C-alpha cells in the first residue's frame, strides 16, 4: 500500500496541501490567514492536475523535428485547466481582499469572531 503512496507521491502531497488549506479556510479566525489557506487549497489542486498531466520522457505538445506520433507528447489540457484555475483563484482572492479591507476599515480588526461581536453591538441598521 505504501509503495503506491510513494509512486504517487506528488498526488499525495497535493491532497495533503488541499487538506491544510481547507482546514485553514474553515477554522482560522484571522481573515488574511483564511485567504492564504484558500490559496494553499487551490494550489494543492493545481499541483494534482499538473503532476497528473506530466508523463516522464514526453515533450511539450509542440511538434518538433516533424514527429507527429502522439505518444511523443504530453496532453496539453491539464496545463490549460491549471491556467484557467489560476485565473479564477486570483480573481476570487482579489475580491476577498477588497472585502477584508472594507471590514478592516469599519471594525479595525481582522479577527472574524471579534467583528461578529462588534457588529452585534452596533445596531445601526435596524
Amino acid at each position, binding site marked *: 500500500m505504501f509503495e503506491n503512496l510513494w509512486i504517487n507521491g506528488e498526488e499525495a502531497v497535493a491532497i495533503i496541501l*488541499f487538506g491544510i*488549506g*481547507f482546514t485553514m*479556510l*474553515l477554522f482560522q479566525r484571522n*481573515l488574511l490567514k*483564511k485567504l492564504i489557506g*484558500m490559496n494553499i*487549497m*487551490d494550489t494543492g*489542486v493545481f499541483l*494534482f*492536475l499538473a503532476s*497528473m498531466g506530466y508523463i516522464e520522457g514526453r515533450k511539450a505538445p509542440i511538434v518538433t523535428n516533424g514527429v507527429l506520433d502522439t505518444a511523443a507528447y504530453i496532453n496539453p*489540457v*491539464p496545463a490549460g*485547466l491549471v491556467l*484557467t*484555475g489560476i485565473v*479564477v483563484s486570483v*480573481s*476570487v482572492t482579489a*475580491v*476577498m481582499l477588497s*472585502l*477584508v479591507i*472594507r*471590514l478592516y476599515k*469599519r*471594525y479595525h480588526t481582522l479577527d*472574524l469572531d471579534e*467583528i*461578529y461581536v462588534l*457588529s452585534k453591538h*452596533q445596531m*445601526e*441598521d*435596524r
Partner: protein
Amino acid sequence: MQFVVNFPLFTIVLSLFSGALCFMLPGKAARRYTMCYEAFLTVLCLWILQYTYLNGAFTYVMGEFPAPWGNEIRAGVLEATMALIFMIIMLTAVFCGYRFIEKDLDLSKENLYYALLNLMTAALLSMIWTNDLFTGYVFLEILTLTSCGLLIVREIGRTTLAAIRYMILNLLGSGLFLLGVVLLYDLSGHLLMVPIQNAIRELAADPNTFPVLTISTAILTIGLSIKSGLFPFHFWMPDTYGWATPTSAAIMSSLVSKAYIFLLIKIYWRVIGIDIVERMPIRNILLVLGIAGMVIGSVQALHADNINRMAAFSSAANIGYIFMGIGIGGVAGYTAAIFHIFAHAVTKAMLFLTTPRLAEVSGDSLLFKELQGSGLRDRDAGVFFTISAFSMIGIPIFAGFAAKLQFGLAAVEDGAGWRLILVFLALAVSSMLNALYFVRTIIRIYSRPNESTRMEVRPHHRAGYNVPMLVLTVMNLFLGLFSWVTVDLIHRGLMMFS
C-alpha cells in the same frame, strides 16, 4: 440544423455583452435595457423549450470540434424549462425591486448593479446549458462572485460581514467541487459529460475502482451542497438574505442556490449515471441531512424575530426538501425535487419582494412587533404575502401543495420501509411547523395596530408592482393546479438526460 440551436449560446453571449454594456450606460438606461433584454431572453428560452419539446434534445458543438475535444452546450426540455422559469423570476425581481435598489444604492452605482445582475444571468444560464464539467466550474465561480457583489452593493456593515461569511463557505464548496472535477478527469480522461459517463460505466463495473468513484462523487456532492446551503451549512442564510437589497435576496434564494442543485442533479444523471449513484451510500445521507434541514430550519424560523430572517430559515428548510427528493431517488424522487425547485423559486421570490413593502409602511422595520397591521396599511403587499405564505405552508391549489404531494408519491413509489416512514413523518412535522410560523405572521400583519404604532400610508406605483406579482401568482397557481403539465415536462427532460 435549425436556427434555434444557436440560441442557448446566444443567450449566454448576450448576457455577457449586456454586462459590459450596462457598465457604460447611466443608471436608468441600464435598468431599462436590463428589463428589455431579460424579456427578450425569456422569449428565446420559450422558443428553445418549444423546439426541444417537439424535436428532442440537441447538442451545440462550439467551433465544430467533435465530441472528445471541443466544448459543448446541450439543451433539453428540462434545461429549457429551468432557464425559462429562472428568466421570468429574474425579470419580476427587477421590476418589483428596482425602487428599493434606488433607495439602497448610491445613484452613481446603479448601473454597476445591473452589470453584475447581467453577469449573473450569464453564469446561471451557462450552468444550465453547459455539457462540460470544467465550464461548469468556471461559471460556478462567476456565480459566486457576482452573488457576493449583489450582496455588498448595499453598503452597511452587516452586508459586508454577511458577504465574507457567504464567500468563505462558498469557497470551501468550490474548492471541493474543483477537486471532484479534477479527480473525475483523472479517472476518465475527459471533461465532456457524455465521454466521462462512457468511461465511468467501465470503471464502475470494476470493484477495485468503485470506491474511488464513490469518493469523487461524494466530494462533488459535499461541495455543491455546501454552496446550496444544505442543513449543517445553512447558517449563512439569515444574514445573507436578511440584509441584502430585496432583488438580490429574491434572486439569491430563488435562483442561485437552485442552480447549484441543478448542476448536482445534472452531474448525477449525465456524468456519473443515476443507476451508479443509487448504488452508492450517498442518497441515504442526503435523505437524512435533507430531513434534518427541513425540521431544524423550520424550528429556527419559528424563533426568528425578524420577517426576513424567518423567510431565510424557511429557505434553508426548503433546500432540505429538495435534497430529500434527491435522497428518495429514482425518477419520481428527482421529479419531485425539481418540481420543488420550481415551486420554491416562484414562491420565495414573491415572499422576499413583499416583505420590504410591509417594512416600508412600518417605519422601515422588519421586526414582527413593528409589522403589526402592515397588511392593512399596504393591502397589495399583504395579499401577495398571504398568497406566498399559503404556498409555503402547502395549502391546496398552490404550488407548495403540489410539491409536497409529489414528494409523498415519490416516497410511496420508492417502496415501504424506514425511508417511507421517515419521509412521511418529516413532511407532516415540517408542514405543521411551516403553518405555525407563517399563519402567525399572517395574523400579525392583519391585526389592528396600537395607536402608537400607526404609520401613514404612502402612495405607490401600483401597476409596476402588481403586474409582475400577478405573473408570479399565476405561475404559482399553474404549478399548483396543473402540476401534471410541469411533471410531464420534468419527466421528459430527465428521460432525455440519460
